[in-house]
């Protein structure tokens, strides 16, 4: 079946089967490998995307449900040479080790800051709690999101750009 959706600002039209996972569609068909498969059952957060403004485990979404949706993956946030303030903050805070959870963490951080630009540390902890990380112990990831909140406040810009 045919679906149409917007990924990282670009409209795409794709032929999918009813049982294709959104995760596979993004990774295999569109090459957006920043979307990671961790547990494959919605428990770890590695495959997180922002779909219609909500954090979504893309491994649990049948592709047809993405019809007409607007999807943001980490690739749509910034580029290597032009990082989004959240990505910049992750680098500066030393928040990345193996990196596997990081695309999901960054999107969870973005979703949190979109809704709550001045979060307390506790709110950041809760905002990231659906994403599991085994390397970092989370402390520097929490620091990074707090730092990003400061940066975005200074920029005074809309973090959704």
């Amino acid at each position: 079946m045919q679906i149409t959706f917007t990924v990282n600002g670009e409209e795409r039209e794709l032929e999918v089967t009813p049982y294709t996972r959104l995760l596979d569609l993004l990774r295999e068909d569109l090459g957006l490998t920043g979307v990671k498969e961790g547990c494959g059952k919605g428990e770890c957060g590695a495959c997180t995307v922002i779909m219609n403004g909500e954090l979504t485990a893309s491994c649990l979404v049948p592709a047809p449900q993405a019809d007409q949706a607007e999807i943001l993956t980490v690739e749509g946030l910034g580029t290597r040479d032009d990082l989004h303030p959240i990505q910049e903050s992750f680098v500066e805070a030393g928040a990345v080790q193996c990196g596997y959870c990081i695309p999901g963490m960054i999107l969870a951080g973005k979703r949190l800051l979109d809704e709550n630009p001045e979060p307390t540390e506790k709110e950041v902890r809760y905002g990231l709690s659906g994403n599991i990380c085994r390397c970092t112990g989370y402390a520097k990831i929490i620091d990074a999101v707090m730092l990003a909140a400061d940066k975005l406040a200074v920029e005074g810009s809309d973090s959704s750009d």
Partner: protein
Amino acid sequence: MKKFGRGLATIMFGFGYGEGFPDHSIASIEIKEDERIVIRTAAADVGQGVITTVIQIAAEILRINPNYFEVVQGDTHKTKNSGSTSATRQTYFTGNAVKKAAEDLLANLYHYGSLEFRSNHPEIAIEDGKIYMYDDPDDYISYWEMAERVRERGKKLEAEGSFFPVTYSPDQNGQADKVYVAYTFLSQVIDIEIDTDTGTIDLLDVYTAVDLGKAINPKNVEGQIEGGTVQGLGMGMMEDQVIRNGKTLNAGMTDYLVPTSVDIPKFKHYLVEEEDSEGPFGAKGVGEPTLIAAAPALANAVYDAIGVRFFDLPISPSKIKKALKEKEKEENS
């Protein structure tokens, strides 16, 4: 009721394979004409940061900005053995191999510099990617130009370094001259609060002091401490693999719980730089040692809080509640 507890644990950790195992690492560095310095090493970076670390080491020895470096990793055609990323050994072993290669290369920069300037090496300065005579800094040869001149001589501006320390198997009394290349020491104090109604442990603060010789990249070291400690606390508090008849019954993140961002404590680190080993700039390995003290320190904190000793992990809320009930019964009888 909430009960506060504080626990301490101290560990030592002999790193590298040790015990006479032929543990070693080989690395090479090449200065290219196109303004790149290429380090070749098979050391696998799994997130701990060995690639950053070896670039820092080589840049320090070769007196040039780290931005010029790139690393060719783990390719059997292009790299030689660096040993495994295990046993907390890469900073020490591959760090030393890279340091030796960089020292050899620096010596060759002096060598070719003295040929080009027809002078002795004490007259020659090497700094910021430039080779020149002390009395005429403006007339310099860049590393890149030197690479070209060396190529014209039919050679490459490259060097290889290997690090192959000797260790010995302990005898039947556990004695030997040197069983491991060096030892990392770590002490950890953990503050907790136990809710006696629910049996849950709240992690408050973790204070970690680690004698690591030298922190080549302090932020990476902190990352290792935080990650290792949280794994150790997971083991201490919640991680419980249930196996029946050879099958894991809780093979998923909803029933095999690992710590999340809401569970972790606040950290404070003390990096003790004693430089007492043959590691690069005195550095010692810091990966695995960061995990070991957490669970025993936690168990001591639990004892401090509620006066109960636990001898098996994890110290789960149900075990704490059961122990508190038994304790109450004993006290009332």
